[in-house]
């Protein structure tokens, strides 16, 4: 019999509504899995056992009363620890916020609660979402369930690992330059970054406001669509949230790709991308063509400058956003004689090295005399990247590429080389700069038995087409492997 912790959200929803299982059953299966996997993974910073149990009871009572708040009612879901949860510690994996308990729920969190979701706990991340491995967490590195000597990716590594291991049925993270898709690829799960503005950023601890977007992790494309539907929508608390209408993303997953125009991005199939990953991407492109898609090669010439532009824009925005962490209103404080000294000592003690590096980088890029050469030029390159995408979408519906240049790397392998670490996001950053939706779907394992992610990108608000293509990729890949950690709890 299938362990309930391994059910898809869609299947669990059917069984809940048929009365075959209860939300408490799902929670107990989940918490049992957490007890087994967590000592190996460290995916969570907080597991909210009491809150989750109460939410599961409430969901069961609602089902009994005939109340149905939607597909996430009664489903155990994990949240990245940069999403504010009222009454539950939220740290962004930083000493600066250690012990901080938010006085409010972020909008995505409030929507999940209103939808009856069972919020399992808060997952580990690189401090303030800055990193690609969770090694920048102040509270210890998370591990990859496929090989615990390797990183789960980042920054949303805890969310990715928890879903891969069955320690949550779905999870949310945030993606500024790839922080959902990259760890999803490294952990063998589906990870999706929505169109900028589709999900409110209210209550998401800000990193780079013009790039940050909340999105789902799931073990299937359908589940990812259901999770996104649970949090999307306009919010008066986020002036940049999208006001218009959008379709139901989970409709049309069975439509296939016949006639779909698919562009494989030339610049993301270069030698710097691991050859096994390129082969897997090429093979999937061929399968899509066999399935009726019209596959062509496209060029995004400015994309090779996207990474450079990103490492000016994101630090610039982060240096402004993190200015609020000054020891005055919340967070930790190092005492000193004057306020100025207190702020400088507080920030030196509260921030880890990568956060300090990026704040300094951003401060420099925005400072008088350098603004136009660095930040201004990066913003113009951002325009060129957007123009490249617009041109490609004149004759394609979606674009495809590898999600990452390598599969999961060993802990410590890149910690001394910031640029090598930054390169982890080379394939994912262009969609953030453009504000477009993008998804990573697992398509196989490399010769070391590590998952390979395949990226699909679509124009802004093209989520329906994106999910439709992703569902076909999922069918064609027939990726059913699970990490040993998730299947061997009786034997280990």
């Amino acid at each position: 019999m299938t362990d309930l912790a391994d059910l898809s959200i869609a299947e669990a929803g059917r069984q809940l509504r048929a009365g075959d299982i209860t939300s408490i059953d799902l929670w107990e299966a989940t918490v049992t899995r957490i007890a087994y996997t967590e000592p190996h993974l460290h995916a969570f910073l907080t597991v909210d056992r009491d809150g989750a149990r109460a939410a599961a009871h409430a969901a069961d009572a609602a089902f009994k009363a005939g109340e149905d708040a939607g597909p996430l009612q009664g489903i155990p879901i994990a949240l990245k620890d940069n999403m504010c949860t009222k009454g539950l510690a939220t740290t962004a994996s930083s000493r600066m916020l250690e012990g901080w308990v938010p006085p409010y729920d972020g909008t995505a969190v409030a929507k999940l609660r209103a939808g009856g979701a069972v919020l399992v706990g808060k997952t580990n991340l690189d401090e303030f979402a800055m990193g690609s491995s969770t090694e920048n967490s102040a509270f210890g590195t998370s591990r990859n369930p496929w090989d615990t000597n390797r990183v789960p990716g980042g920054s949303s590594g805890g969310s990715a690992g928890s879903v891969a291991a069955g320690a949550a049925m779905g999870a949310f993270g945030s993606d500024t330059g790839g922080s959902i898709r990259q760890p999803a690829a490294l952990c063998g799960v589906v990870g999706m970054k929505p169109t900028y503005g589709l999900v409110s950023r209210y209550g998401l601890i800000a990193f780079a406001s013009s790039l940050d977007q909340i999105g789902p992790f799931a073990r299937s494309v359908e589940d990812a669509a259901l999770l996104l539907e649970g949090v999307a929508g306009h919010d008066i608390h986020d002036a940049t949230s999208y006001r218009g209408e959008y379709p139901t993303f989970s409709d049309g997953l069975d439509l296939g790709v016949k006639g779909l125009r698919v562009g494989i991005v030339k610049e993301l199939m270069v030698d710097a991308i691991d050859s096994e990953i390129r082969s897997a991407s090429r093979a999937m492109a061929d399968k899509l063509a066999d399935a009726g898609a019209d596959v062509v090669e496209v060029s995004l010439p400015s994309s090779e400058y996207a990474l450079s532009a990103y490492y000016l824009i994101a630090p610039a925005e982060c240096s402004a956003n993190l200015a609020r962490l000054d020891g005055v209103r919340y967070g930790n404080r190092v005492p000193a004689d004057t306020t100025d000294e207190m702020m400088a000592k507080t920030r030196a003690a509260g921030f880890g090295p990568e956060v300090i590096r990026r704040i300094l980088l951003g401060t420099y890029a925005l400072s008088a005399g350098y603004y136009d050469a660095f930040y201004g030029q990066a913003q113009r390159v951002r325009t060129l990247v957007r123009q490249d995408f617009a041109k490609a979408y004149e004759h394609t519906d979606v674009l495809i590429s590898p999600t990452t240049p390598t599969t999961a790397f060993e802990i410590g392998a890149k910690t001394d080389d910031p640029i090598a670490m930054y390169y982890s996001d080379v394939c994912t950053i262009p969609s953030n700069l453009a504000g477009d939706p993008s998804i990573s779907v697992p398509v196989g394992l490399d010769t070391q038995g590590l998952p390979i992610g395949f990226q699909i990108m679509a124009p802004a608000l093209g989520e329906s087409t994106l999910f439709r293509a992703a569902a076909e990729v999922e069918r064609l890949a027939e990726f059913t492997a699970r990490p040993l950690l998730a299947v061997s709890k009786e034997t280990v």
Partner: protein
Amino acid sequence: MPVDIDIAKVAHLARIDLSAEELAQYGAQLSVILEYAERVSSLPTEGVEPTSHPLPATNAFRPDVVTPSLTNEEALAMAPEAEDGYFRVPRILGEP
């Protein structure tokens, strides 16, 4: 070419109190990162408008209606130091 940075000035602007050793270390790292980031300047961008935001939306108004917000107690509950309903900080001005 490595980029020359007055790292002590940058750290002061960012209000981060770093030792001389840390300043040297971050300065060297930033120089390497900026050398990489500076590649953006090799693209011709004359006449290209900068993008500051992916959405063209301007003037996002909400209805002008008063709604509940945090109470004074809730807002101060997590303050490092509070007194009489206010956030409390150390001396701001120099010695009198």
